């Protein structure tokens, strides 16, 4: 036995994306996000990722408030990402009870952000989230929600980020994002083979079989999905059962069936 492969649900709160119901702009929407988080927790999700706060001040406050409320009632690891541009903001989120922050465009613009977060809070608290797409036979880093190409090689960037202190890499394939064609095995492998920290694959999952294929075909440590879980096209137990049947180690259903035991 070894560490279980993780199934991660992403609460994607980017304005204008498919997952409109959990886009959060005010306190009422935080309630919605908490509802989803609670459901995933009850279903036995291994981890939660909350994306994407905005760089603006009031939405950052919302993110901190959300993180604090999640930490009040859910006792599983969670990450907050999107728009984090300073170690101070990262610290504010981590102090509420979040386990990690994910940095993306901000780190591409200023790679010392990774070093600053890792030095202050530890590598384990700093996830590099890299959005990438195919370009002339390589994988190119794109920023600002996948819209702006940077000319940087994603494998080289992930390697540099890990050297700077990132403790985990989230690989989001823009080529697969929203396509339901399955995870991007090629891109995930290229990065997972280049770094020695855990790697999370994201983008394209639509079935439990996609998770099985991911863990059979790449060294990824975790698979992440958003909208398919939101719309119940697929549930966390579906994925775990399929992985278990395929002989892939997962945290089993019995481990989370009991109540959280308040009092």
């Amino acid at each position, binding site marked *: *036995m*070894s*560490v*279980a*492969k*993780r199934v991660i649900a992403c609460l994607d709160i980017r304005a204008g994306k498919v997952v409109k119901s959990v886009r959060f702009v005010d306190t009422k929407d935080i309630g919605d996000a908490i509802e989803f988080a609670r459901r995933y*927790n009850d279903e036995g999700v*291994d981890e939660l990722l909350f994306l994407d706060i905005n760089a603006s001040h009031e939405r950052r406050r919302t993110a901190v408030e959300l993180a604090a409320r999640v*930490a*009040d*009632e859910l*006792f*599983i*690891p969670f990450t907050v990402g999107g728009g984090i541009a300073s170690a101070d903001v990262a610290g504010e989120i*981590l*102090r*509420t*009870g979040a*386990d990690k922050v994910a940095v993306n465009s901000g780190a591409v613009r200023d790679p010392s952000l990774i070093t600053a977060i890792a030095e202050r*809070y*530890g*590598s*384990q*608290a700093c996830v590099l989230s890299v959005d990438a797409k195919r370009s002339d036979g390589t994988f190119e880093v794109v920023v600002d929600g996948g819209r702006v190409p940077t000319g940087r090689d994603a494998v080289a960037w992930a390697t540099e980020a890990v050297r700077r202190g990132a*403790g*985990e890499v989230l690989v989001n394939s823009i080529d697969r994002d929203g396509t339901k064609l399955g995870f991007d095995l090629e891109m995930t492998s290229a990065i997972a083979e280049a770094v*020695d*920290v*855990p790697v999370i694959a994201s983008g394209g999952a639509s079935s439990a079989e996609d998770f099985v294929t991911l863990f059979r075909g790449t*060294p990824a*440590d*975790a698979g992440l999905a958003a909208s398919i879980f939101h719309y119940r096209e697929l549930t966390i137990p579906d994925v775990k059962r399929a992985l278990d049947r395929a002989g892939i180690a997962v*945290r*089993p259903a019995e*481990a*989370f069936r*009991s*109540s*959280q*035991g*308040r*009092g």
Partner: protein
Amino acid sequence: MIAIADYGVGNLASVRKAFHAVGHEADLVRDTRRLRDARAVVLPGVGHFGHCSREFHRYDLGPAILDARARGVPILGICVGMQLLFEGSEEAADAPGLGLLAGRVRRMRGVPRLPQIGWNEVAVGGSHPWLVAADGWYYFVHSYAAEPEAGVTLGTTDYAGERAAIVGSDGILGVQFHPEKSGPAGLRLLRGFAEAVA
């Protein structure tokens, strides 16, 4: 009162909230004099051993913890907080541990990924009056692991080899994983500790 030694490290809030969720109040305590009133002391920690050790000593927690130990106040160490109870760590040779548990902390070698991040299965092999943990899945985040001397290990996990997951001796309990982030299994462990030391 259960006192969570507050030396500014990451998982303080989560540990307090987890005790609260199982019906036990735990206070973050920075003033070492207040540790004298505690019925149990929790030593949290996450991240770099050297950083944690420096902060720990900067707040002068060493003598307070040793004093608590001498007075028989139960101590629970979590992750790097548990590692601090050992003699020292390869992660920071110049930063000493408390030496309350026999053994040292070393980098995990021959492992697929570092840090180990995720849920791993723990097999409990020893007993301890405050340990109410069944075998189960717990959340780990670490690159270094304690290599305790004989008799200190109470539970193990497998990450490219057997690793100490639960350790203890008379008056001390320590866990490498994060019970405050291990769902119902972790909450049961914290509740068990809180009730046993009440």
